[in-house]
């Protein structure tokens, strides 16, 4: 598996409180050529995002401290992170309709995440 042109050097922040999920996503994205970092809660995510300045953040909606929707709004409101693209991950519901204009997310996926779909979404956002 070679990194694709669109993934090379793109920075992705993974936010998930489930350690195994976060580590696995980190491994997958790194092998696909992304530069990825992990946060396990909303507050850490904000701090890391300000330093790391990711182009994309993959956010689990059910975090222990901040709701994923609230975190999405917080990240988008930061002047340094306005251009960030957000992908939501949720263990709830089948296929909710998420309006990017109100939710803050550019895309939304339901767990269990399909690898191909995730990689495809990361290339498109």
């Amino acid at each position, binding site marked *: 598996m070679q990194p694709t042109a669109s993934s090379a050097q793109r920075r992705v922040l993974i936010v998930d409180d489930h350690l195994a999920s976060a580590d696995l996503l980190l491994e997958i994205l790194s092998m696909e050529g992304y530069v990825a970092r992990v946060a396990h809660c909303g507050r850490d995510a904000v701090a890391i995002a300000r330093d790391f300045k990711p182009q994309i953040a993959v956010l689990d909606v*059910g975090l222990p401290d901040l709701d994923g929707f609230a975190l999405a709004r917080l990240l988008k409101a930061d002047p340094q992170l306005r251009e960030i693209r957000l992908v939501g991950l949720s263990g709830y519901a089948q296929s909710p309709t998420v309006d990017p204009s109100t939710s803050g997310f550019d895309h939304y996926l339901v767990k269990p995440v399909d690898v191909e779909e995730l990689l495809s979404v990361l290339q498109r956002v």
Partner: protein
Amino acid sequence: MEQLTDLLHRLDNLRDDERRQLSLELHDTLVSTLSATKLECDWLLRAAPSGEAESQKRLSRVSSSLAEAIQFIRQVIDKLWPSAVAHLGLVAALQGQLADLRMRLGVEVQPDVQGDMETLPELHAMMLFRAVQETLNLSTKPASTQRIKLTLRRNSKGIELQLAMPRSAKRSDPPLSRQLDGALMRERVLRLRGEYLLADDGEGTVHLRLYLPLPLRGRGIARATS
């Protein structure tokens, strides 16, 4: 009588708290762990050399089994406590229920939603969702999809839900636990000064009408944090 009603309310609240806690634990541990395992399995499958057909077949089988297990646990979670209502909003959670109905009975139902459902108080949204959930459980495959109607209308004073759908062909009494759920639902609606009507029209259709007045203040709640 008043003491009995108070006791019923307290037991109802306790049961709700236990269900909420259990559903959260199931979601945060089991769904997350199984989802991560499935992702790992799919990743291995993607990386497996094309010559190893037997390995690919086995991994694919494990992945499908995990997907089924996750789907089953989601259904259990939804029955215990519909967390999706708090996290995603009433309409998205109802869409999930209707997707389940589509899978179970092959029925397509488009809800007719009028008014802002995103800022409903959580208690009201939960009650509406559960009423739909319990009524959908009464149904079997209908002869015509035209007969299923779901309408939600919100105005400045309250919110009204109407659902009409074919009843199960079996006319046996529902189990005691479901009868208790129905009685508790009525109690909750009355506590909010609302109206609840669940009736069979004698021609095989169940009609649910639920009206809940909205509080003067605090109509908008933020989605629940987890």
